[in-house]
């Protein structure tokens, strides 16, 4: 997980069905970390309602996908229409998700 600040938002109409209804945030990491590729910003989906300027914890990889999976399964099991192309567990083509909105940080100085 990484600590970063929300610097913006994205909107996309043409997208994979798994992104329907997901809010996309642009997050700038605060601390050094070692991504598999060079990035200045991360795009993460957000279900917590983080706003621009807030510090958030972003989870990367498979756990990010699983974190939003429970809700999808309930939707599918509850008789409501599942997303088009829904394929069961871990359906979302997502690899970064907001896990927490940070209230306070001790130990490091944030800008």
């Amino acid at each position, binding site marked *: 997980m990484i600590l970063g600040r929300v610097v913006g938002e*994205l909107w*996309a109409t*043409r997208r994979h069905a798994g992104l329907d209804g997901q809010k996309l945030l*642009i997050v700038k990491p605060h601390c050094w970390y070692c991504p598999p590729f060079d990035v200045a910003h991360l795009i993460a989906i957000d279900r917590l309602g983080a706003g621009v300027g807030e510090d958030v914890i972003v989870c990367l990889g498979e756990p990010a996908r699983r974190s939003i999976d429970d809700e999808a399964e309930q939707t599918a099991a509850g008789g409501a229409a599942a997303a088009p192309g829904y394929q069961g567990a871990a*359906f979302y*083509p997502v*690899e970064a998700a907001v896990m927490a909105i940070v209230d306070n940080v001790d130990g490091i100085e944030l800008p």
Partner: protein
Amino acid sequence: MRLARVIGPVWGARHAAGLDGRKVLELETASGGRVAAVDALGAGPGEWVLVAHGSRVRDLTVGAEVADKDIVIAIVDDGQADGGPLGQTARGGR
């Protein structure tokens, strides 16, 4: 997931069987790096797209047989970052 701008399509007559019939785009990421990603949405040159990386993402979007783990999952309509339009910030790098 990261933000990137489409440079243009990439073709290769001799390619892995997993790329048959797939459209591959060369992208420039927000930090200036280049990546070749499979696109099933129809993004064109100059458009901003969202690229996700990984085998699970690939399996869920374009299929497990595709020989590329970078996938275009959305074409960006609009966005704002650092209080300004998207393009400027994204090019601003770190």
